[in-house]
């Protein structure tokens, strides 16, 4: 089987609510998503999606995905899409780095492998059943009252796990937010305080040693070194996200004792193949993981839910679904959806999501 054509579509995905990242970074109102279809000489096609969370969050932006795939395409045409590790090696030689460019290509190849094998991706990833995965909310930063109100609204929709964004310039307000949310959380619910790199190490130590909350704290500072420094001086379990890119970074984080868990996001690490490798490492060292994508429609969400569902319960916390925060649904009703706080991966072969061409408009590029 050979790849014969790679076709790209660009979609604007408007968010239902504008989103503010911590640290005074820009707010944004829409996401720039790229849908990728890979066609083969045997008539089987696979779909992937790459959708950065704006352009201020990670070293990734929508136009960069399309420019990168243009550079990768000549190396990919003619390759066997079922040979996932080989496909990744080909991409790594053709274009070092740029994991966000490679993720949608890798995703489409997993879709093809699943369709050819007649198996859902969760089973190819080692899963025993289409396990329902807890979905977690994303609570924008604000006053403690505003944030608790948002948690209440999320709870009414069935969410039991919440990711609350903290990390402003006012240390006292962060302390107040964390204490109020930790004590005011509905019974049985869990929260992670996501700092998105906003704190200096001393700020993190000051805040976390001032609160009685012992909930998870995510990515307190910019670098792995800073986070490791903080992890050794606070009581909270630490989850790392943005400072981890390659497999090597995860080994380094473990060696330094910098965290008790990580976020596994295919688009950040370069696709499902790399994400699975990192997940497997996490399982072997006892990490607890949030497995979800950086952004996108139910297509990208579903790919991540396949990986999450195939992860042992003890090592899986929850998954955020980006499509739930969008005003549009380019794959109507398909894939893993939030039903009473849980998402179940499809059991159809491959990813189990097939975009309808009428919803995508005209392709922006095609390589063959």
């Amino acid at each position, binding site marked *: 089987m050979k790849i014969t054509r790679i076709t790209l579509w660009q979609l604007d995905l408007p968010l239902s609510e504008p989103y503010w990242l911590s640290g005074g*970074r*820009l707010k944004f109102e829409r996401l720039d998503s790229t849908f990728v279809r890979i066609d083969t000489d045997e008539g089987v096609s696979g779909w992937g999606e790459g959708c950065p969370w704006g*352009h*201020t*969050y*990670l*070293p*990734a*932006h929508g*136009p*960069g995905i*399309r*420019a*990168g795939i*243009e*550079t990768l395409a000549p190396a990919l045409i003619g390759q066997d899409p079922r040979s996932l590790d080989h496909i990744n090696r080909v991409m790594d*030689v*053709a*274009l*070092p*780095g*740029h994991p966000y460019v490679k993720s949608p290509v890798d995703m489409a190849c997993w879709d093809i492998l699943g369709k050819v094998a007649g198996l859902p991706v969760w089973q190819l990833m080692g899963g025993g059943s289409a396990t329902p995965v807890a979905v977690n909310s994303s609570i924008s930063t604000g006053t403690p009252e505003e944030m608790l109100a948002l948690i209440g609204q999320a709870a009414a929709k069935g969410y039991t796990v919440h990711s609350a964004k903290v990390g402003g310039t006012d240390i006292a307000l962060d302390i107040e937010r964390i204490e109020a949310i930790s004590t005011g959380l509905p019974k049985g619910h869990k929260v992670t305080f996501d700092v998105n790199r906003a704190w200096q190490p001393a700020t993190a130590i000051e805040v976390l040693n001032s609160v009685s909350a012992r909930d998870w704290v995510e990515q307190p500072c910019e*670098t792995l*070194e800073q986070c490791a420094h903080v992890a050794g001086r606070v009581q909270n379990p630490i989850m790392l996200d943005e400072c981890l890119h390659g497999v*090597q970074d995860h080994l380094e984080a473990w060696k330094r004792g910098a965290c008790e868990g990580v976020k596994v996001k295919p688009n950040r690490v370069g696709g499902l193949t790399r994400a699975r490798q990192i997940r497997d490492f996490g399982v072997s060292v006892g990490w607890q993981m949030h497995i979800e994508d950086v952004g996108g429609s139910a297509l990208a969400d579903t790919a991540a839910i396949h990986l999450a569902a195939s992860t042992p319960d003890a090592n899986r916390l929850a998954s955020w679904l980006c499509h739930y925060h969008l005003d549009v649904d380019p794959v109507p009703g398909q894939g893993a959806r939030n039903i009473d706080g849980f998402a179940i991966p499809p059991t159809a072969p491959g990813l189990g999501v097939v975009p309808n061409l009428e919803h995508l408009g005209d392709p922006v590029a095609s390589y063959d």
Partner: protein
Amino acid sequence: MKIKRISLWSAPLTSHETYYMASGKTCDVTITTVIRLDTDTGLSGWGEVCPIPHYLEAYAGGVAPAVEELAPVLLGADPVGPEAVMERLHAHLPGHRYAKSAIDTALWDLTGKAADLPLYALLGGRQVADMPLYHSITCVAPDEMARMAREAQAQGMTQFQVKLGAEGDWQADVARLVQVREAVGDGPLVYGDWNCGSDALTATRVGRAVAHLDVMLEQPCRTIEECAHVRAASGLAMKLDESAHDINSLLAGHAQGCMDAAALKLSKMGGLSAMRVCRDLCLTLGTQMCIEDTWGSDITMTAGLHLAASTPRRGVMNTCDLSHYVGPRLAPDAPTRRTGRIAPPEGAGLGITVDEAVLGAPIAVFD
């Protein structure tokens, strides 16, 4: 002063001698991207970035989309004081250092022109009159490489980078180091560079086979840990390149004891603003520096020369005259090598005149 227009050009640079590195990497023809920032005062600043395909996390096609993403921040900004502008660019689009390096060079060019001072004066003041160049020898047959070394030595070159690993034959790599060392005689600096293309075992075998010679090894393997292993097992001094790209990786290389020397490259570090900080750290650590860019022509080469000339002699190992290796020249009045050495120009900013006729029509204009 405000930036009112951003123009981008794309131009092919052809190597005078096709250049082979480990793992099949070459730079026969590369695409360089040139940027010009125009301001409301009539002053313009120039920058350039030219990634080598498959070499670092950078590619020619990624430059224009990144500049377009950054254009809203640049347009209307005051270019004087590049670090402040760069900070805003980093917040707008993290990463993509290579694309930002071209912008950063243009900001420095404008700042220098506004101050009517050459860049070396703004980057720390003139510390050396000129700098030694190294000559990079493409990975071909050992005797052919020895011949190239002798030729370059006859023109005054005293430092030789011997590319290794093109065909994965470790004994050929030993022969390359032995023959080049012998060809140039005692004294000149000779170092063998794998560009990450080796495993630790093979590099250790090569290193131990030449451990009786005065040679240094450069970036044999991909990670700092592996390079440190080769450094310890071979006992030979080591230069880091690909794995040393920012403050944290320089600190890691130093901590692992495998960074006798380091390559500071504008597109790898993200421009003069970021590289100046790395330069200052290397001075503190005692690391010998090669101050240059990955590839390219006169514009980015000259930017590197200004930073090198403002670095104290104790830290400058060498620099590279990139535009000697490729054609066409983008700024014919840019400096050239003289008896193995080179110096930055004296004019304001970069101090060079870009030949716009060579560039043709812009590929993109943002205003």
